[in-house]
């Protein structure tokens, strides 16, 4: 009974478990292959489909390279300069940071409509705490970051403990946070000159490093470092794998030993903290602290995530895809502006990209079916 068999059994039926039912007798004559993974006889298109299934950020990367190439051919040196290329980076820095927060939430099969509002409120807290209460800028920045994390924590509590749908929770929080932002700031902008004179730390992410024509603002560097860090965390730590597991199938994750509630709360809190960081970078980008800035950050971040090939149903996609998605939008906007077309063409094309991205996602998923 306790005879141990450490020898691999192979695919052969083991002793003592011969088919006992009449209808199973024929099984001994059936093919012994349990399943084969046909890697040989596939059409090139199927191979490509499998490749895309295994590397979810490949599609947006291909689209990004193609669009850079096309605009490069049309516009030549005007587009292919170090200055233009790094200008695109500067323009997507804020969306990239907010998109990182959005990525985390969407990977858990949620959605965060309040990201832009959290970003603006945090930047207003940083500004007002410095100028209204005379706090040292470093402390004001910490308060702003804490404010963002708190907003995210509330989102997380409502989603995980109250079991409310993320869309509803963040739709409500979006309004609540935006209204608090206007009420608290009295709709008052803090001017750029005042900030650079009295609290240059608030504009920290506006500083830059130049290599010839290339201009890298600290905001761009922060975005790249943040995405690299989150890529590592999502792929090489247990927390990161649990983010995917929770988004994939929360019940299965719970039974397999993941504390789903704690994961959701930590994801929304971290998302709020990253939005606050984006708020700080926003001050560097626009110079002033304005309660009306960044109105469309929520939609823009969702656009970047969707074009980046992440599934809104959760559990699939890579944060690198999000950054490629944000860059595609950046390349299209700047490229079309340089060509001199009506800016509405940009929105039209982005709309087409969003729908194509989801269509491609559906096709790739069929690999599993």
């Amino acid at each position, binding site marked *: 009974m306790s005879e141990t068999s450490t020898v691999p059994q192979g695919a052969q039926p083991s002793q003592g478990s011969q088919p006992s039912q009449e209808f199973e007798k024929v099984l001994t004559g059936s093919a012994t292959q349990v*399943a084969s993974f046909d890697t040989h006889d596939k059409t090139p298109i199927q191979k490509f489909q499998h490749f895309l299934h295994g590397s979810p950020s490949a599609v947006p990367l291909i689209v990004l390279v193609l669009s850079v190439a096309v605009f490069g051919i049309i516009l030549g040196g005007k587009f292919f300069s170090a200055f233009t290329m790094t200008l695109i980076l500067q323009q997507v820095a804020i969306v990239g940071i907010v998109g990182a927060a959005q990525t985390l939430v969407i990977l858990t099969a949620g959605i965060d409509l309040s990201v832009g509002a959290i970003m603006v409120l945090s930047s207003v807290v940083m500004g007002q705490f410095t100028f209204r209460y005379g706090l040292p800028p470093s402390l004001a920045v910490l308060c702003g970051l804490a404010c963002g994390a708190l907003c995210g924590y509330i989102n997380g509590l409502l989603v995980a403990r109250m079991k409310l749908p993320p869309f509803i929770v963040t739709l409500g929080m979006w309004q609540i946070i935006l209204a608090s932002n206007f009420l608290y700031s009295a709709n008052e902008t803090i001017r750029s000159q005042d900030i650079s004179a009295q609290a240059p730390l608030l504009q920290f992410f506006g500083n830059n490093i130049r290599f010839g024509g290339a201009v890298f603002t600290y905001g761009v560097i922060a975005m790249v470092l943040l995405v690299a860090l989150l890529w590592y965390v999502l792929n*090489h730590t247990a927390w990161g794998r649990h983010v995917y597991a929770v988004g994939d199938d929360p019940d299965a*994750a719970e*039974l*397999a030993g993941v504390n789903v509630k704690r994961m959701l709360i930590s994801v929304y809190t971290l998302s709020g903290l990253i939005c606050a960081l984006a708020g700080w970078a926003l001050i560097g980008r626009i110079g002033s602290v304005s309660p009306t800035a960044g109105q469309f950050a929520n939609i823009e971040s969702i656009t970047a995530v969707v074009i980046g090939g992440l599934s809104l149903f959760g559990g699939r996609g890579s944060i690198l895809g999000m950054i490629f998605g944000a860059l595609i939008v950046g390349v299209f906007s700047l490229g079309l502006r340089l060509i001199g077309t009506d800016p509405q063409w940009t929105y039209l094309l982005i709309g087409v990209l969003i729908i194509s991205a989801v269509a491609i996602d559906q096709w790739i998923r069929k690999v599993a079916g």
Partner: protein
Amino acid sequence: MALEPILTARGLVKRYGRVTALDHADFDLYPGEILAVIGDNGAGKSSMIKAISGAITPDEGEIKLEGQPVHFRSPIEARSAGIETVYQNLALSPALSIADNMFLGREIRKPGVMGQWFRKLDRTAMEKFARDKLSELGLMTIQNINQAVETLSGGQRQGVAVARAAAFGSKVIILDEPTAALGVKESRRVLELILDVRRRGIPIVLISHNMPHVFEVADRIHIHRLGRRLTVINPKDYTMSDAVAFMTGAKLPAEAIAA
């Protein structure tokens, strides 16, 4: 047999409002055996299994693992005590790889600074372990341990879930309807897996509606009726019709009549 039961339950009671799902149910599992649990729908067999696997907390009664009283408040606690459960829905994350799924919630971190400070997972160690466990159970037809679980067939997924339980279940493995969703051939494969696990000395609780499967692999059959254990029979002494008669109340077992 002078063996002591490894897992026992005495007088389990669980009420949901006015419904009594468990009415002083008893349960015994001996080392190295396959114990099948059968019962009509609503007999309370899943409530009993959930109480043992930590998914519900009974209102009354006592559960002992190796003679020590245990009180599980979650499946995770039961798991850390050595009781692994393969749920009917398998509890696998489709988009994650086989190795990731096997280690979900108990990942191995790299030794040294990388693991301690950067929390880096030890992929190589986890993949090797997963591959070893799958080949032990004769599942080496799975070529790539990094394959997403959603690319596997139903039988292979079941195999991964059983392998996960077998790899970590040091004391008891509970299988809930492991063949319910499978075809003839895949069912056979899973039954072989179950026998393989027993051969390695781990006792198994098998919940199933499939009488032929139960009679084929079980050493003893626990028949649950109206929230309690009606009787335990040896499949060699009774026919399938007897078992069905007992569990539906068409017939009473000898000892119940005597008592």
